[in-house]
């Protein structure tokens, strides 16, 4: 890796040890974002040597990969491999112990969650976390609101911007509900939707924030094969709208069918990366999923 990268790594490290008095401008991590990866200028999201520790547990160990614009990228691995941890680091829930995550060339660690959302990363949750007492439409409108500018004063006095944004927000939210196929449930509270509809609503709410990168955390969990198929079709349609997709799954068959590229994690380490056909043949991946035969060890 190049010299400036190491410097920025050190700065990340310093920030994590609680030294808040580091003068501004000492590291390239501050200041205008610089194109970082000389290899892949197409990278939308770049994970650079990310390590994440919880006490003595190393949840992610020096993981690097990058997502290209417009692809469907799979992050897979057995249970406990660090998929969701990696995901949480990308969306600002956890802060990497070492390394950094660049989105569109700008580092995202240290930013607040709502700022990361505004940068263009949206996510869904493995265990559904809708706003249960809001209607489906209102749930999506919360997402759409992320890019609205009506102030409290504007809402109080019903300024023109309030009306405009309310109308736009409602129309866009409705369009998104139609897009994911639950337009007919717009006025039902989220808690009254069927399980599959709730998963789709989560996707619509995330799309409401107008993301360039949509991260789906096990969106097919608990789905039967027919539901999985229609979900995959939906994911492809979202990609066709120009949204890059990061898909977390541990169901190999599902991921193989839809992803352009895949990274396989095991025990917090990257063990394989590449096209589905290549990854599927990788002995390390097979071992991770099926276990190592005694005579092969």
């Amino acid at each position, binding site marked *: 890796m190049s010299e400036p990268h190491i410097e920025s790594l050190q700065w990340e490290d310093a920030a994590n040890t609680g030294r808040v008095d580091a003068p501004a401008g000492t590291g390239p991590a501050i200041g205008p974002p610089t194109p970082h990866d000389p290899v892949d200028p197409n990278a939308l999201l770049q994970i650079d040597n990310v390590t994440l520790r919880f006490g003595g547990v190393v949840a992610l160990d020096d993981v690097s990969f990058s997502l290209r614009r417009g692809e469907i990228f799979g992050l897979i691995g057995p249970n406990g491999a660090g998929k969701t941890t990696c995901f949480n680091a990308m969306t600002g829930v956890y802060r990497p112990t070492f390394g950094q995550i660049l989105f569109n060339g700008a580092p995202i660690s240290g930013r607040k969650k709502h700022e990361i959302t505004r940068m263009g990363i949206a996510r869904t949750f493995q265990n559904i976390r809708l706003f249960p007492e809001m209607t489906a439409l209102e749930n999506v409108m919360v*997402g759409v*609101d992320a890019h609205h500018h009506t102030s409290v004063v504007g809402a109080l006095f*019903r300024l023109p911007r309030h009306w405009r944004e309310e109308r736009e*927000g409602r129309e866009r939210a409705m369009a998104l509900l139609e897009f994911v196929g639950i337009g007919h449930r717009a006025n039902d509270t989220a808690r009254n939707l069927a399980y599959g509809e709730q998963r789709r609503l989560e996707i619509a709410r995330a799309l409401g924030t107008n993301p360039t990168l949509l991260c789906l955390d096990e969106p097919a969990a608990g789905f039967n094969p027919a539901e999985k198929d229609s979900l995959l079709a939906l994911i492809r349609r979202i990609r066709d709208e120009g949204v890059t997709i990061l898909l977390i799954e541990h169901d190999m068959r599902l991921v193989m069918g839809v992803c352009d590229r895949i990274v396989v994690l095991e025990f917090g380490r990257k063990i394989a990366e590449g096209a589905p056909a290549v990854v599927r043949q990788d002995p390390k991946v097979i071992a991770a999923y099926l276990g190592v035969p005694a005579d092969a060890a």
Partner: protein
Amino acid sequence: MTTIDKPPVETPTAPATPQGPLGRFRQFTGSARRWWKDLPWWGRLIGNVVIFGLAALLPYAGQIPLIGPQIITTGIDWNSSLFVMTYYVLLALGLNVVVGYAGMLDLGYVGFFAIGAYTVALFTSSDSLFHMQWSWLAAVPFGFVISMIFGVILGWPTLRLRGDYLAIVTLGFAEIIRITANSTPNFLRGDRGFGSLPHPPGSWSDGTKIFGVRDAKPYFWLGLVAIVLVILAVRNLDRSRVGRSWLAIREDEEAAEIMGVRTVKYKLWAFAIGALVGGLGGVIFVGYQGFMNSSTFVLQFSILVLAAVVLGGSGNIPGAILGGALITYIPDRLRGISDPITHTDLYQWRFVLFGLLIIIVMIFRPQGLIPSRRRAMELKDRAREVAPQ
């Protein structure tokens, strides 16, 4: 390998057919609510105007044949009781924004009421250190602004706290205000308080002052106007991006933040708006009183206002109004009634009876008398979490 996750949000079973008087009552309130919701906008507007017209006539309620004497017993100074109702309703509306909408438990709401009141007193009273002796009206905007500033000052460092921790900090805040007042004999004057506070301006055509000492009716109407303004403001906020953000924060703060809601900002706004309305209550209170001291701003006051919000139905404007009115009316209604055993005034038993009433309401209608639908469902969810079947 597939996981079979249980759906975390259960779909509720179909509502059972209502049984018993309570069930029939619920069915009635439900259909009344639906009828109201289905009215065209002008129908609801007319309805609201009629309701507030009737509310403005409340001082004359004693003259209704048969019912009047039941509403006003001999012990009540009805007009001043109505006025006290208005500022309790105002406070309940303000606290409802903090507790009901944004879901933050504030136990020190009286602090903002006190700041509004003290600000006006400092600017207007002849006892004040500043010797400014402004008119009531000139001091009013400062009452708003300064209580709002204190809302932000308290909110900024504390809104990282949640639930019980926030409640404790706010509790301390109100006590700090009261104790500061008690320990600064020259500035906030403790028990000695501020005298000769001016009343709101204006006079009738015959030259007598509208806001005098004898008649509390004009103060009640002033309070009613303030209530209408606060309702309009709160309703506008509730039905906008702001209200959605508050609701999202209340339901799942982390998910809200990940969906781009600036949680700290909106919680701070809820706090500031609550503080402003609390200050408004204090400002109106001072305009009526003529004299005030630190003994008004006791903890019990905060608890009563919170009880009003919870009793009426948290997260709901009509609920807050009903709660605030009941919390003043019920104790007053007990005046002048002799209790059959000790032959003392029932008013002395007000806290016992009042406590009993709250316990009964909380057992049979934990979501409050006029609940917000959403809050009611959330309560059920929480009850299920605590006691899974």
